[in-house]
């Protein structure tokens, strides 16, 4: 990756920094201000979309660390989110703990559940691991229906009242927006730091060739379990926020299909970078919103409604499948890679390479 002319690093910290020049700082600050002041000028639709987007971002970034950086296939992210949601719900309902305790606690509980499946990752690889994580989904659904009613409500699910922090009630979309945006920003910032640290490098080493990594002294067992722990921690936090947003937790809300969508977001965005996770999530969510928004309108066009109502909606599945397949065949490194190429060509213009 080339740096713009005149920008160079003199210390290690500068070399590793994400933001190097003051225009970049200004862009970042403007963007953050824009995002945080969104409720002031965005409509209800935008706020609703952004709320779910922030929550999904947390889960997908966690998945990226697990799958993209450590190379462990994980199809159970939705189940880990469910564990976090139930944990947060149960802690709030039964023990009345404040949310600055329950959200991290939910994350940790989900992380422990995830690490359990991570232990399996030590023994099996590739497809086998994917299957084990699919099993996680089934086990989660089963367990939540069978554990005692007083703990997790079984079929009734958990109903929550709006939570509050320091007297600030989170009971409508705008207040939830601030909660979710701030926690999400924190977690993403943490993720970026994580992947540039020695832990991140160890995970990448395990992904690239775990036998060679073992030879040079990396504790492969520990790092594989750790990658699941971290990925599930993120999913747990996302689940807790989800529980506080919807205020109703039921195991049927966390399905295998949701996990598949998350992986699809990673593929579209590009595996192996946090930016890829973010881009992928935003693109897929926009695609879904586009179809939801224009669907009824397109349906009205007589050509489509003569085929049969709802064809546009049913085509959503086909579209997602197509998108995943096309990206894998033609753009296997995702949109983040495409973006990097654009950045590169801009920087070294007018030279071709």
């Amino acid at each position, binding site marked *: 990756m080339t740096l713009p002319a005149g920008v160079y690093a003199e210390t290690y910290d500068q070399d590793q920094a994400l933001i190097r020049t003051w225009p970049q700082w200004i862009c970042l600050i403007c963007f953050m201000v824009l995002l945080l002041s969104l409720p002031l000028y965005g409509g209800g639709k935008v706020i609703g979309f952004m709320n779910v987007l922030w929550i999904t971002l947390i889960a997908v970034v966690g998945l990226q660390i697990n799958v993209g950086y450590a190379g462990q296939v994980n199809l159970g992210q939705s189940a880990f989110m469910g564990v976090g949601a139930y944990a947060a719900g149960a802690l709030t309902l039964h023990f009345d703990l404040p949310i600055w305790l329950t959200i991290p606690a939910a994350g940790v509980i989900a992380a422990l559940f995830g690490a359990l499946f991570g232990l*399996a990752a030590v*023994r*099996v690889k590739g497809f*086998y691991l994917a299957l084990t994580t699919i099993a996680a989904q089934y086990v989660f659904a*089963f367990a939540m229906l*069978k554990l005692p009613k007083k703990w997790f409500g079984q079929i009734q699910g958990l109903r929550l009242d709006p939570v509050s922090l320091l007297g600030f009630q989170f009971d409508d979309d705008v207040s939830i927006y601030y909660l979710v945006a701030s926690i999400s920003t924190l977690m993403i910032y943490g993720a970026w730091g994580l992947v540039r640290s020695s832990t991140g490098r160890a995970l990448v080493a395990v992904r690239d060739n775990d*036998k060679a990594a073992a030879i040079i002294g990396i504790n492969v067992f520990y790092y594989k379990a750790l990658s699941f722990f971290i990925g599930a921690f993120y999913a747990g936090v996302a689940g807790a926020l989800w529980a506080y947003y919807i205020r109703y937790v039921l195991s049927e809300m966390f399905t295998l299909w949701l996990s598949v969508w998350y992986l699809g977001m990673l593929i579209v965005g590009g595996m192996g970078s946090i930016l890829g996770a973010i881009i992928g999530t935003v693109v897929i969510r926009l695609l879904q919103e586009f179809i939801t928004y224009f669907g009824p309108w397109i349906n009205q066009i007589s050509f489509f409604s003569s085929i049969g109502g709802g064809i546009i909606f049913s085509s959503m*599945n086909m579209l997602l499948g197509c998108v995943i397949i096309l990206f894998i065949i033609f753009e296997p490194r995702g949109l983040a890679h495409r973006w990097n190429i654009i950045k590169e060509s801009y920087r070294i213009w007018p030279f071709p390479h």
Partner: protein
Amino acid sequence: MISLLSHIINGALIGLLFALVAMGFVIIYRSARVFNFAQGEIVILGAFLFWTFSQYWELPIWLSLILAFCASVVLGLIIERVILRPLVGEELFALVMVTIGLLVFIRGLVLVTWGAEVHFIPPVFSVKGVKVGPLMIDRGLVYGGAFTIFMSILFSWFFNHTRLGLEMTAVAEDHQIALSLGLNVKRSIAMAWAISGALCTLSAIVFVSGKGMTFMAADIGLAALPVALLAGLESIGGLVLAGLLIGVSMGLAEHFLDSVLQGGVGAVFPFFIMIIVLLIRPTGLFGWRTIERI
């Protein structure tokens, strides 16, 4: 006592049906090193095609069967050519994800073409049950079990004792080396998908004959995964044993634990077994134990 026997026998037959579906997985894995997550969807696609031929166009059943088999073979070949050939040599993860994309795509296709209503499939096997002592067993399941055992013997012999089968096995072990030995990698992979397509339709017919079905029946693809894993993803002969084991244990679990835990144990039990097996013996009962080299 009788109900215990009923659970065991029915469980065994259901396990053999899962083994038939799993055989489709294993044949593809054995030849192309690709794990086809979309197997369940291809199964119901075969069933819907059969429905179209027999109910929509009202062709006689034997003709519909033949057409459905041909159609699914062609389908397997199309999938291989369009989606997998560009990805020969790509890493594992891409292959996993592309079949997941295929799963989503085919589900959408089924929804768009046939809708979400219940479709009734005419009974292919006679509806009279088979009498085993005091029990009545569904005839379709018995035939299915017989097919599974027959097919597994046939394919075991094919892959281990015929030239074509050995070529396909060699391709599975390493594409590069097979190419360098002059084997036709593309043809092997295409054949594997074609055979798998036909097997999918066969299992679909056993599964849904005489019943109504919707697109939700594709979940059988996921339910058959534990059987494939228990047998080891490269072993065809082992599928029968694995199917029986999983089926019988499902039946036993249902019989003993359903009343205690209010049901649902049967569906999740195979996954428990799968996890335990994976931890003890990661390559399943009869899978190849590959030695990884740096």
